[in-house]
């Protein structure tokens, strides 16, 4: 009678693997304080989960009475999250050692946050959605305030915590109202129930509050005010983790809600208008404010706001191509942003000054550290959207979907915003390669040895961007197949 439980457990096995490894890491850390084998264990768990998800890529299933989707789009999003987590774990080890905060708990928290993100991306009901979102957020609050002696880190953590919890309140109220309007927590039943019941004010309010919660988590304008402060104060490699994996998970969940839970005419109507306006404003505001930044970390924070806008453009299209394009964009964005923050972390030169890393301090660093210079070039070109890198393909996919959906103006705004963004991305490269080394402060010019693991991860990220950019065919097909018209109608 309860046999299905075993089959269902197998379907969420990757999440369970990551959770079990996280618990093992906590136990290991309790008995061997900050043991050097912890990052290895964490990395192995993430790789194992990544491989397990890979098997499910073309095998969409429902588990636990529809509470969880496994495989298919969820597997794709989970693989993106795991990729970001893996890169962050490896890059964090030398960085945290340098700033003297290489605790074993960091890796446990990254793993637990990953569990939350995977749950969020596989959510099949409002309950799973909430639990995943909060598991992720609470871990990220702690990671933000990791360097607890530093005022900047305290401030980021407090801001992130208060604003995050505030937005959780709205998100939760949205869930409650949606539940009240439809009488169910399951996405699959929700879309059926809405076909027959009339849409009351409660329902509209619920959708609006839920969207506000999501837009906050992906830091879209006008809910972006926390992003620069939080990204600036957090440890750099963990900023990379936060800005990519958590965004990927939240966007994947938003895609699932739009494609599977809300009625089609609403998504094509009011929701589309809202999302396209938000996307346009986010792209413009993110890029324009980034132009004025002199702190590289803060500049990348505003750039990540702008990228949320590009992805929202794909979501606003509301078609299978748009959703699939957004998924592909998330993959490319995760790889390039983890890499970019990894380079910044390696070049961060002083514990006190790290928090206010000025662009001038990078002067001439391309010659001193050619590997960092070259890989940073790849990441920045990809972020700008130059062919033949993955960033270009991602932008092409989301903008093409927007044009197909009749939102040509949105695509035009997006392309113009990308042109603006080229200015500040390339400025970093110009400083790194063309400015004389003497422009940088004395302390920034100390020679240092690059950790082998950092070199390997950064090179792999750059290589992956190139491969995804040159032959993205299979990945695009996979991403877009999940949300074909037929696949959605079939309730999967």
């Amino acid at each position, binding site marked *: *009678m*309860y046999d299905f*439980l075993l089959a269902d457990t197998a379907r969420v096995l990757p999440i369970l693997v990551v959770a079990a490894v996280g*618990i093992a890491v*906590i*136990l290991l*850390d*309790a*008995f061997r304080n900050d043991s050097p084998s912890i990052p290895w264990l964490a990395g192995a768990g993430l790789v194992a989960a990544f491989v397990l998800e890979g098997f499910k890529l073309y095998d969409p299933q429902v588990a636990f009475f529809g509470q969880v989707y496994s495989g298919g789009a969820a597997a794709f999003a989970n693989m993106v999250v795991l990729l970001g987590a893996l890169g962050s774990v490896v890059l964090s080890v030398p960085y945290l050692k340098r700033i003297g905060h290489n605790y074993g708990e960091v890796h446990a928290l990254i793993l637990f946050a990953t569990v939350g993100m995977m749950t969020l991306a596989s959510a099949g009901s409002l309950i799973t959605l909430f639990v995943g979102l909060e598991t992720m957020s609470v871990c990220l609050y702690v990671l933000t305030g990791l360097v607890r002696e530093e005022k900047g880190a305290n401030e980021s953590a407090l801001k992130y915590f208060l604003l995050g919890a505030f937005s959780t309140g709205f998100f939760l109220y949205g869930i409650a109202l949606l539940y009240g309007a439809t009488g169910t927590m399951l996405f699959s039943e929700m879309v059926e129930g809405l076909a027959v019941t009339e849409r009351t004010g409660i329902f509209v309010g619920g959708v609006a509050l839920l969207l506000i919660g999501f837009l906050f988590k992906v830091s879209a304008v006008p809910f972006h005010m926390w992003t620069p402060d939080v990204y600036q104060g957090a440890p750099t490699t963990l900023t990379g983790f936060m800005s990519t994996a958590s965004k990927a998970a939240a966007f994947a969940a938003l895609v699932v809600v739009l494609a599977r839970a809300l009625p089609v005419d609403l998504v094509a109507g009011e929701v589309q208008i809202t999302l396209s306006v938000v996307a346009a404003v986010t792209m413009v505001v993110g890029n324009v404010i980034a132009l004025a930044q002199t702190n590289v970390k803060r500049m990348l924070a505003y750039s990540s706001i702008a990228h949320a806008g590009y992805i929202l453009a794909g979501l606003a299209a509301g078609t299978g191509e748009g959703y699939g394009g957004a998924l592909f964009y998330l993959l490319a964005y995760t790889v390039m942003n983890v890499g970019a923050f990894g380079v910044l972390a390696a070049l961060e030169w002083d514990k006190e000054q790290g928090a206010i890393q000025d662009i001038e301090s990078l002067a001439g660093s391309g010659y001193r550290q050619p590997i960092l210079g070259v890989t940073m070039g790849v990441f920045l070109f990809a972020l700008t959207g130059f062919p033949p890198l993955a960033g270009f393909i991602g932008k092409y996919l989301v903008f093409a979907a927007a044009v197909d959906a009749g939102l040509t103006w949105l695509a035009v705004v997006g392309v113009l915003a990308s042109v603006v963004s080229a200015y500040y991305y390339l400025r970093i490269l110009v400083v790194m390669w063309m400015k004389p080394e003497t422009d940088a402060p004395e302390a920034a010019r100390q020679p240092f040895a690059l950790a082998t693991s950092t070199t390997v991860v950064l090179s792999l990220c750059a290589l992956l961007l190139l491969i995804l950019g040159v032959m993205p065919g299979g990945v695009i097909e996979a991403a877009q197949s999940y949300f074909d018209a037929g696949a959605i109608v079939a309730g999967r």
Partner: protein
Amino acid sequence: MITDFVPLFIMILLALGLALTLLKLQQWLGPYQPGKIKGSPYESGQDPVGSARERYSIKFYLVAMIFIVFDVELVFLYPWAVSFGEFLQAGGGAALGALAVVGLFLFILVVGLIYDIKKGGLDWD
């Protein structure tokens, strides 16, 4: 519907009246002889040695935080305990499965506790 609450209102009024009456009565009836000893914080007891408004040690917060987490997690045991009877009746190892699930839940909590003890979260000094 509002009439259902009339007894409650009467009760509240009675309680309020009784409390106020007693307060006033002891002022009227009791002798009032203020003095130095009478006015001390602990009459005919120890003399106070310092201000009572001290900042609490940070350790209280640590214990409070740990307490909150472990305390609230127990809320999940209630629905489990209530529905355990149904699993027993269902037979076919369902009860064992339910027991295993709650065992796993408690195991995770215990891991947290072990971590806490090992890291010195419960050491007072």
